């Protein structure tokens, strides 16, 4: 196959004669990796075809009866720009929509946009400083008013205004949005921006109606009646909301996608706990769908035997990882421990970090603790596929770990614990209280003991460990311990923000009230250079290579990824519920239906 054939094929995908998937399969047969083939299509201006929507069967809208959803945390407000947690974002997504959504592979799917901007359709500027979004014509708000470019400009103004106190401000404050005509806007950036699809996309991108929110921008934002009674463009119209309890909606007869939505009414009930939510779907069938099943796989399997439903797993950017403190937690400098002016007595030696990496039995942690809900990994970036490093490996090898420690000069004393220059290899390992984490701690402690490392375990209540209280020394960002483990989610299908976690200027310390993202306090000029280069790189393939290099640098020393964790849901047996790990659980709600 030569270049001309290839272009012919790409052309066929473009006019829809060949499916995207068939193209990728053909390329894989030729020895190309699937993400590479995807990038080829993207580079040639093929909008990421909506494969996730292809499976939708119903031939008409409505007639599906009631859809009953169970969230074990109850939504407390339905303004997507005030959403404090996932529960609020999900509730908002029933009524509001962004311009585009992220599919499971981390590609964009148009929702309110007519198409995904690209260099080829001229919407994406060659210098990376602007992007033009064009709205789908004919979309109406639930109250019958048309959706226009003014709504986009307004949403940008609303979210970026500090007085509004929107939680999405970060996605809107560094760009400018200007109206071109009634259906299109131009988003302008100060500097070349390879990741141009933050504003108006996915979770942070839900568009608000100007005609209703207009009078309530800025300081008056709390008074808007629509905060509790949303009017959006989504598949369901608002019926009722009781904060902290229930959200109800009914089918939007003017929905802009054909034959959708399938259900006549929708209900999202909140509260309770994850296990009983799983029971309501898997055992009694009282509900159709339950969100975020943070339950051990053993329990889920037992509940599933009821036959009323199944467990559904999608992967996004959630990672369980272990951090080896690069600074010394036992020395206090200027009222601050783990100060970056210090060096960790053991972990400053890369060999000790490598030895510990070899002592973590990821395979066992996956098999015995996480089951179907996680995969062992050696990477900090585990998706989308085009950003995942292929050069990293993990292994469990205590013999090699022992050899490395011997080599590094840490010799075993009479008590079997290694020491060097009078310092014993005794480490404090902290995490939050959570059964799987305590089990993981035990597995690591046991293996480390075999290599002459004594680990003292500490567990802190979640509400303390994850709080941002600058006065509390037990939070994960203070990191007053030698090692710590927790999970963190990349909420975007692009690792640039995620990788800030290892950038030297992001170090969490007293000066920034421990709000910095770099908790491990590991600093590397090579990493910073690769990261900064990626920030200005407009060629997607070169940029991916730079970000992969960042990943490889971080995991070679103080960052030990453990488990790539899935977003787990319980789904009723007859319900087809396409989901994406890179977007809300309800991002593809219009495509949900029930098999007869």
């Amino acid at each position, binding site marked *: 196959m030569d270049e001309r054939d290839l272009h012919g094929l790409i052309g066929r995908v473009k006019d829809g004669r060949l499916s995207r998937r068939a193209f990728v399969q053909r390329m894989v047969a030729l020895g190309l990796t699937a993400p590479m083939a995807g990038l080829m299509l993207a580079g040639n201006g093929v909008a990421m075809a909506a494969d996730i929507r292809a499976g939708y069967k119903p031939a008409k809208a409505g007639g599906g009866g009631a859809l009953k959803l169970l969230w074990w945390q109850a939504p407390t407000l339905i303004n997507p720009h005030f959403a404090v947690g996932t529960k609020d974002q999900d509730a908002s997504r029933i009524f509001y929509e962004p311009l585009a959504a992220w599919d499971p592979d981390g590609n964009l799917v148009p929702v309110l946009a007519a198409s995904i901007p690209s260099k080829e359709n001229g919407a994406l500027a060659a210098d990376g400083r602007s992007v033009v979004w064009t709205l789908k014509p004919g979309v109406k708000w639930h109250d019958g008013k048309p959706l226009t470019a003014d709504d986009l400009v307004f949403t940008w103004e609303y979210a970026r205004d500090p007085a509004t106190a929107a939680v999405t401000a970060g996605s809107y404050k560094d760009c400018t949005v200007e109206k071109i005509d009634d259906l299109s806007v131009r988003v302008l950036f100060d500097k070349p921006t390879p990741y141009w699809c933050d504003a108006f996309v996915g979770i942070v991108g839900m568009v608000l109606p100007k005609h209703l929110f207009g009078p309530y921008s800025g300081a008056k934002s709390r008074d808007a009646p629509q905060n509790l009674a949303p009017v959006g463009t989504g598949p369901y119209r608002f019926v009722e909301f009781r904060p902290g309890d229930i959200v109800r909606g009914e089918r939007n007869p003017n929905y802009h996608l054909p034959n959708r939505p399938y259900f006549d009414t929708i209900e999202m009930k909140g509260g309770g706990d994850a296990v009983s939510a799983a029971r309501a779907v898997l055992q009694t069938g009282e509900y159709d769908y339950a969100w975020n099943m943070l339950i051990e796989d053993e329990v889920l399997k037992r509940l599933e035997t009821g036959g009323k439903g199944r467990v559904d797993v999608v992967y996004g950017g959630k990672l369980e990882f272990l951090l080896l403190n690069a600074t010394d937690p036992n020395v206090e400098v200027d009222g601050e421990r783990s100060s970056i002016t210090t060096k960790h007595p053991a972990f400053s030696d890369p060999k000790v970090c490598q030895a510990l990496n070899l002592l973590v039995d990821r395979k066992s942690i996956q098999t015995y603790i996480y089951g179907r809900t996680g995969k062992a990994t050696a990477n900090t970036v585990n998706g989308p596929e085009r950003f995942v490093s292929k050069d990293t490996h993990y292994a469990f090898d205590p013999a090699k770990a022992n050899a490395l420690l011997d080599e590094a000069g840490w010799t075993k004393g009479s008590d079997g614990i290694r020491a060097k220059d009078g310092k014993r290899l005794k480490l404090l390992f902290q995490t939050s209280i959570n059964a799987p984490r305590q089990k993981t701690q035990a597995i690591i402690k046991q293996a480390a003991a075999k290599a002459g490392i004594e680990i003292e375990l500490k567990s802190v209540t979640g509400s303390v460990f994850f709080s941002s209280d600058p006065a*509390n020394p037990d939070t994960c960002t203070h990191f007053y311990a030698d090692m710590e483990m927790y999970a963190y989610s990349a909420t975007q299908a692009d690792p640039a923000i995620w990788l800030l976690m290892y950038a030297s200027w992001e170090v969490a310390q007293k000066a920034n009230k421990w709000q910095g993202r770099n908790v491990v306090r590991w600093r590397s000029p090579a990493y910073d250079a690769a990261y900064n280069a990626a920030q200005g790189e407009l060629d997607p393939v070169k940029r991916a290579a730079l970000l992969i290099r960042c990943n490889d640098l971080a995991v070679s020393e103080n960052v030990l990824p453990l488990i790539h964790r899935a977003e787990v849901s319980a789904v009723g047996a007859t319900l087809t519920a396409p989901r994406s790990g890179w977007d809300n659980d309800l991002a593809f709600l219009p495509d949900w239906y029930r098999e007869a």
Partner: protein
Amino acid sequence: MGAYILRRLLIAIPSLLGISLILFTVLALAPGDPFGELAANPNVPPEVRAALRVKFGLDDPILTRYLHWLTAMLHGDWGFSFASRVNVDTLILQRLPTTLFVVGSSQVLALLIAIPVGLTAARRPYSLADQVANTLAFVGFSLPTFFTGLLFILLFSIKLGWLPFVYQADLPGSGLPWLWANIRQAIMPVAVLGFFQAASYTRYVRASALDVARLDYVTTARAKGLSEGTVTRRHIARNALIPVVTLVALQIPAVFGGAIVTEQIFRIPGIGSLLIDAMLSNDTPVVMAVTFVFAGLVILFNLVADLLYGWLDPRIALR
């Protein structure tokens, strides 16, 4: 009497102030903040979180915040919830009917069980009926509601499939089917709470009935040749229930305050679940309002109980 009530009400003011100050301080000292979940979202820059803290006044000194809250409260402004940005009074009023219905019915059920069982048990102490009643009462208040709740769910919802275990405050529909659906979903929570309460009430009823049964006027009534039923109803029960009435009066605040654990298990959107959610998300204004109202009700109903006691039993004088 009037002077007594006035004095009690005046004493209540410093107690309420003290309670609110302690509550506020404890809440402010507790770890975590309402925007903690944002910290786990890499998309939200730390500045945004800091701006929110400033906007909601979380960075002010505790005393300033307390005085702000207190002056607003005195003006009738209960503040707004950090989590839902809705006024706290709206939130509470929205949930009050559900709690009143569920917890109120459970109190009624408890009394309906406790009074006949307690009196029967007291009629022939240490008989078989008394032993059975005693055993059940001990089992009843030894089993915590979260345990019986789960047991009921496993049995009636999952094994038998008779009852739903997710409570809905506002079921759609009307007429008899709607009424039946409402009763059906309330059966388990009301039973769980009712049995637990009935167990302790039974013990009280039995004990006070035994006290009264030994008194001379009961013997006189029997000697007059009155039937055993009349003696129990007219002479024993009426006097034995005086302490029980005060006990019930003291339980009324709980009817308003909801049942935290049971509401959580059955997903009942009542005051109890509002309180626990607010605590978990460090939603200070909501926690303050709910606990403060609860404290006020406790003080009020203590007074009511005392007045009721004096009214039911003229031997007790209130000074």
